[in-house]
């Protein structure tokens, strides 16, 4: 990362490498992961993974459904369900442009973003609703401020929260995979990074991310397995 002051003073040019931006995302979400229950993070990961997979095909399977639902809502809003002669209203609704135009890249981008963000929020909140309990405070255990019982559980709690942190980092990676090529690689944003470099970094990191996912599942199963 390079920080330089312009000759006139005041204005700073911020130049970030793709790796730095990915690391910022991973670090932030890893921090969130360290503060949340592992099960919540795994569910959040599932939602982000679904969003990422859908965005790889530009959410094309969802476009016809979204357009149909949009037309149905318009039809209902314009009173089509209440009138005796709904045909003129339906014809008028059909003439309106669709919610998502598959031929318009900007429309696809916004639809992708909407689906990704919606899935992320749903799965995040679902995790919060399913598992209300907060994970133990690692800091209090590490500083021996907790009870004797909690101190005896320290290795297990630490391993669980470490796994949660790793899953959080993976979540950050998925978010970076979505955001960087679509938004930060543009030429008009404040923070500019070359698009090809971003893709190179993400593609190169993907294999590591996949391996880390499997390691997380191995550790999770290993933790859940009872000793003989």
């Amino acid at each position, binding site marked *: 990362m390079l920080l330089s002051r312009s000759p006139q003073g005041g204005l700073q040019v911020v130049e970030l490498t793709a790796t730095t931006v990915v690391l910022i995302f991973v670090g932030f979400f890893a921090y969130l992961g360290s503060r949340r229950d592992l099960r919540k993070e795994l569910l959040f990961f599932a939602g982000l993974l679904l969003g990422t997979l859908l965005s790889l095909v530009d959410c094309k399977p969802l476009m016809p459904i979204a357009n149909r639902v949009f037309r149905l809502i318009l039809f209902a809003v314009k009173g089509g369900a209440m009138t005796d002669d709904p045909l003129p209203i339906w014809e008028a609704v059909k003439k309106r442009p669709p919610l998502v135009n598959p031929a318009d890249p900007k429309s696809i981008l916004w639809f992708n973003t909407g689906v990704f963000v919606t899935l992320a929020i749903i799965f995040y909140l679902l995790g919060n609703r399913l598992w209300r309990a907060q994970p133990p405070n690692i800091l209090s255990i590490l500083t021996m401020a907790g009870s004797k019982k909690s101190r005896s559980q320290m290795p297990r709690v630490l391993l669980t929260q470490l796994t949660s942190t790793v899953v959080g980092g993976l979540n950050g990676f998925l978010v970076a995979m979505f955001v960087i090529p679509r938004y930060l690689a543009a030429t008009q944003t404040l923070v500019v990074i070359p698009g090809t470099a971003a893709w190179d970094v993400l593609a190169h990191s993907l*294999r590591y991310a996949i391996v880390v996912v499997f*390691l997380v599942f191995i550790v999770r*199963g290993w933790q*859940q*397995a009872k000793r*003989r």
Partner: protein
Amino acid sequence: MVPIEIVFFIVIAIFGLVGLVRGFLRELGVTLPLIVLLWAYSALGERLLRLVEGGMAKAAGYSLPTTTGDLVRCSFFIVTLIFVTFIAYQGETLAFGGSDPPGIQGWLLALLIGLVNGYLIAGTAWYYLAHYNYPIQTLGMIQLPLTPLAQAIASHALPPDVLGPLLPFLVFFLIILRIIR
């Protein structure tokens, strides 16, 4: 003839089912020797072959003919892979101790590790077939060219390519898990 990628996916699915039946911890006991074998292949495999071939050439003045040489080299990797796989599945020595995670979570984890083991086994065999330009085509067991999907998998998605630089860490990680358990 069935496309090679279909065979690849079928083998992975079969190992997934085997994993489901055997359980998570036993399957993890298979993953460890497979990862160690992959590491040994990447670090020693080619060197060992060159050493043996050099020794044969010096001692008996015999060198492998170019037509069958690749078949012999490829067979070395595949036969040792089958041997290690057989030992890993047959023996109990490397199985992780304890009882499997309970419920559906345990099933899913067992399926996942079974699929990973299938990927490691089928993927490694495919990698060495591709590395030696499919020498079994002389036996009529495969027909080239590959489909675009098979080419993409063979170029980017086989275990030695994907795991290459991570293998020492994975070996270390799994051994630590085994020791702690």
